[in-house]
């Protein structure tokens, strides 16, 4: 597999480490009233779609950036690769 890194261009997937669903960026608010339930869902519940899936990959043998890769789980087609940091900021994560 080839991941087209937004800064470095196409790189072999063996330079990367896979983590999982990109929803891991959305760490719940620990102060929320239902924080325990939200964290439970955050840690344990995942969609397992046939088709498009947004997932986190770490460029361990590269620039050490976390990426959000949009990959079709059926065809392995990768339609989008973003820096996870940019995605996190766009989702309102800051400090």
């Amino acid at each position, binding site marked *: 597999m080839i991941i087209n890194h937004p800064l470095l261009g196409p790189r072999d997937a063996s330079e990367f480490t896979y983590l999982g669903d990109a929803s891991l960026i959305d760490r719940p608010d620990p102060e929320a009233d239902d924080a325990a339930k939200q964290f439970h869902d955050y*840690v344990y519940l995942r969609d397992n779609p046939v088709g498009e899936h947004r997932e986190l990959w770490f460029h361990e043998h590269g620039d050490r950036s976390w990426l959000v890769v949009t990959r079709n789980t059926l065809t392995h087609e990768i339609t989008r690769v973003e820096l*996870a940091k940019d995605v996190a900021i766009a989702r309102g994560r800051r400090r």
Partner: protein
Amino acid sequence: MTQAFRLAKGGLVDRSQTLEFRFDGAAYNGHGGDTLASALLANGVRMVGRSFKYHRPRGIFSAGSEEPNALVELRRGARQEPNTRATMAELFGGLDARSQNYRGSLKYDLLAVNDLFSPFLSAGFYYKTFMWPKPFWEKLYEPAIRAAAGLGRLSREPDPDVYDKGYLHCDILVIGAGPSGLSAALTAGRAGVRVILADEDFRIGGRLNAETLGVNDMAGSDWADATRAELASMDNVRVMTRTTVFGAYDHGVYGAIERQTDHLPHSSGKPRQVLWRIYTRRAIVCAGATERSIAFPDNDRPGVMLAGGVRAYANRFAVGTGRSVSIFTNNDTGWRTASDLSAKGVPIAAIIDTREISPLAAPRGAAVVMGGRVTGTKGRHCVRSITLAGGQTIECDCLAVSGGWSPNVHLTCHQRGRPQWNEDIAAFTPGGDMPFGMRVAGAANGIYSLQNCLADGRETAVGILDEFGLNPPADDALTADEEAASISAFWHVREGKGRAFVDLQNDVTVKDIRLSHQEGFRSVEHLKRYSTLGMATDQGRTANVLGLAILAQASGKSIPETGTTIFRPPYTPVAIGAIAGRSRGKEFRSVRKTPGHRWAEKNGAKFVESGLWMRAQWFAREGETHWRQSCDREVRQTRASVGICDVTTLGKIDIQGRDAAEFVNRVYSNGFAKLPVGKCRYGLVLREDGLVMDDGTTARLGENHFVMTTTTANAVTVFRHLEFCRQCLWPGLDVHLISVTEQWAQAAIAGPNARKLLEKLVDPDHDISSDAFPFMACGEISVCGGVPTRLFRISFSGELAYEIAVPARYGNSLMAVLMQAGEEFGATPYGVEALNVMRIEKGHATGSELNGQTSARDLGLGRMMSDRKDYIGRVLSQREHLVREDGLKLVGFKPVDTAQELKAGAHFIAKGKEMTTENDEGWMTSVAWSPNLQTSIGLGFIERGDSRIGETVIAADPLREKSIEVEIVSPHFIDPEGERLRG
């Protein structure tokens, strides 16, 4: 040693070069440019093996990689390689080959009796015949079947050859160097894009070498040769012969195997084969087509061959495959065999064409039977005569059969592409869903005339150039000889007795297919698995289409309705050795050594692999014969005076930035925000699920500068986790990370004399007295005249201890210098065994306790979970199950009878209870012999352990059949108040 069947002239063999080889012990001669198969045929060797199930005599069937029959063992000793296709083995002087799959001799195989039992060996016989009685399967049936069936034998010795891997990149990969591949490569090459042209053959040209058709008024093979020369002269083109592209993988990545030395007597230490990963923007599959047979009774006799193969032997190798050849065909290409052979002086006995059309031009003297069918063959070890439907018998010693051609669609299927039936050519052509960037040209795309193949290759390349935004080079308008290629599908002859084989390699007959259908195996996928059609090394290259056509007829459906199985990589077999490449034995993985490794080696260290790291396990002194002697001495000497241990392997992460303190505070469960500069603190990193991920000491070197240590095993995981937190969770924090594990060589100096030893090295402007540098102090100092040093007053052993870090280049010297300075104190180096003993004596956790299933509370570190801040893992660490009072607790254990030895992995059961899972209360994680306490001691988790000190339980070890009574004690066996480390 005559080559009686070698034609007087012609061919692409080098007659000036005579190569001697052996087959089944007999010596023969061949020429340069021969394959083993062509050389055997040149010598009149017709029978080359026995079939898989029935042990029927078999001969060479084809002239290419599709060969189902001629599987031989090559070479001797450890280099013996079974199941090598004689049609692909390039001849060299001294080649030693043997036939396979017989007992006794090839001609008088004792297992040929299987053929008489054939009624019992029909489709699915494994599943039916050997059902009962059940124990017979393992004890009798399976061993007997395995001995009788199966193909070649392994040498059972390690493969002495070396293999390698490699990575290639190109704009266009052209797979196959026949007419369409050459035409495509030429077009792309001339346009200046990066091209790789790969072909499994050792000679470029594909069917151009096997046919007599010309290109541009040159012989086809000459044109191929000229084109190869032009391509080889281009910097942007790489021509790879003996290279099979065997798999199409995601995103334009292809796997290829290059046989670099298989054609040489010796590989001379160079890689025998290279497994290439080829990255492409586009690929053009020009893999050609494979001829298939027609099923008729006794169609497996040596001498029955594919007509295209017979043509290849005559035209390319100058070998006549018989003294008198007959042709059985359903298409025009069979007639070409007749004319080509006749032109070379090989008599044609008859042409039998299943079609009711007017005959094509037949050679003089050949009988022509239109609408004819072969209903049987005769001859013991080679065909002697054939019988036709009308009862007519024709004498001949070779029958060339053509049932039509199947495009080699394999690579197009590797990502679930499904071929489509094309009635015009009675074959499957590539379907719509191609792997990324793949195009197909020429015969692989169902285009069968040479002129059209040349044009299709060029057009396909032009199309790709257009996608690249490039102009095609000027068209040099390749022209080729005309040829006829029409076909009318004909699959099998219904008349006659005897078995009609479909799949020669697996001994699958027409009857087997009908039987499978009758028994309900109606889908092609089921048929394949039940009958074994299309399995094994040739993957049914000559058999699949024939088989499913027969299934279609049996079920009264059309071929498109019946469908086809698809193909997975590899296209042809790939040796496991090539897949392993260099990753064998010691080179399976890399080795990490600390800078002090050489010093340790010289000083008697025995090493243990810890992940990739080599760590000193103990340092044997003269006279010590057992590791425990060394270990006990190291422990005693450290606790009595001073010991030195290389701890470089611990992970070290440099954390800097305005928000460094905030960041560290969030990833540790305990507070770090207020850690003063110049101090260290022990911290726990939790996973978000609330369980412990790792532990270690973090030092604050400056207001915005921390150095975190991780365990050796988790260094990479923790770094990844920190980067996740930094980039994905808190992208707004100003913090930066870099690993400094490799930068610093680090040693622990432990024992009452640790400070005295250290003071001898520390430069005079640094004060390390207990007042100036108390327990948990850290600082940047210098030693030995200005060498920058990081000093941490931390202790894993429980003694007065320091960890000293110097730049790695000094690491080897540091060990020597520490020992030199420690000489007056009797300093000892100690290894991980002594380290382990001392940490167990202190009740410190390591990987055995931090096993990914334990919480801070389990470890007795509940107080390290801050309730004044958020941190990773906080919310879920408060889950009901993780905070229950009766949960597991880490405590110490001692045997009640101190003569007994504790075992890690033992489970705790209350006395008098049965050893069952229900009664399991916990387990022993770590054990050691304590030379200080003169008893075996252990750490372990047990329910409510902290409130059960003094109680005795059974440490049950049913696996090792040893269960002993143990007392629950405090995990702090030595100096529970920690007075020593503050000294």
